[in-house]
């Protein structure tokens, strides 16, 4: 099995699907032209989806940035409370959120690149549709009927290949856009329940524990104050009161 051979098979299958409706070069040209317009439409729609997903991700990135500073603050509080375990938990979440940010940014960049390539591909297809239109007439004028047919067929195959290839590129871009959108939705949900960096235990648990730690630290401080008040040196005052 060959990688290139398989690619050829994939595109040929697309080409025969594309040409199945057309019976002569005239129809093929019209068909290619129509398909090219549809593809252009698809590329544009795809662009709109990418921009929407991108905006959404940018908003999410901002929320993530907020979470980063909040988690940092939580880690600091935990350390102050002498709870290194909680600080560790908060920092793990922070690192996880940072990874999310980096992954999302990379995905958006990748998709934007793909869209640019698609626009170029569509332009190329448009030029080839036009070239085919001109060439068909020249071929008909210059060659005998049989020869002309062979050359036109070759040109049709070339045009259909271009069409099929742009189609394939669009399908791939659509799939990537869908994945990006799904990811944005998943992150939206996680952000909504405040559970994004919540892959170990619940955020509530961290906050509750941190609250507990602060509470305990407060209790300890109060206890220490009371103990200090109850030092032997201060007892006489109490004893005086008693006596």
């Amino acid at each position, binding site marked *: *099995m*060959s*990688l*290139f*051979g*398989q*690619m*050829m*098979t*994939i*595109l040929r299958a697309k080409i025969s699907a594309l040409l199945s409706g057309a019976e002569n070069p005239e129809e093929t040209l019209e068909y290619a032209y129509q398909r090219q317009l549809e593809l252009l439409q698809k590329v544009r729609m795809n662009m709109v989806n990418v921009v929407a997903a991108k905006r959404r991700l940018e908003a999410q990135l901002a929320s993530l940035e907020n979470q980063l500073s909040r988690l940092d603050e939580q880690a600091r509080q935990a350390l102050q409370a002498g709870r290194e375990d909680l600080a560790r938990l908060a920092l793990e979440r922070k690192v996880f959120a940072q990874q999310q940010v980096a992954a999302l940014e990379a995905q958006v960049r*990748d998709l934007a690149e*793909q869209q640019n*390539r698609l626009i170029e*591909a569509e*332009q*190329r297809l448009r*030029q*080839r549709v*036009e*070239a*085919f239109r*001109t*060439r068909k007439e020249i071929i008909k004028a210059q060659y005998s009927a049989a020869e002309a047919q062979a050359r036109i067929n*070759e*040109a049709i*195959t*070339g*045009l259909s*290949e*271009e069409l099929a*290839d742009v189609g*394939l*590129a669009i*399908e*791939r871009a659509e*799939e990537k856009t869908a994945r990006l959108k799904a990811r944005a939705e998943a992150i939206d949900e996680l952000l909504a329940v405040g559970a994004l960096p919540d892959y170990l235990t619940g955020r509530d648990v961290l906050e509750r524990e941190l609250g507990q730690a602060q509470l305990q630290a407060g209790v300890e401080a109060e206890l220490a104050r009371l103990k200090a008040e109850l030092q032997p040196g201060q007892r006489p005052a109490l004893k005086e009161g008693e006596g």
Partner: protein
Amino acid sequence: MIVRISGEGQYRLNADAARHLNELDNELVRLVEARDEAGFYTRFRELIEWVRSRGERVPADEVVPSDVIIPPPDLTFEEARKVFRGEGLVPG
């Protein structure tokens, strides 16, 4: 010969490029079978660069079918495996 890089366009290469391309194709097959992801990416990038640097871009007003079709430059290892399994590039 005409070589298409899928999603990018066609290149015209001289006829003896076919042998080299065939060797590269076989090597890519080996790497996918061996699940050598890093090796695959390195080789595949080299292949794309080789075609781009050796080939001459087919102008847009020339309508010719390709002799060889190379997968898109951003092909992932997972996609390459799918192509081999005959599942195509896009699910469904």
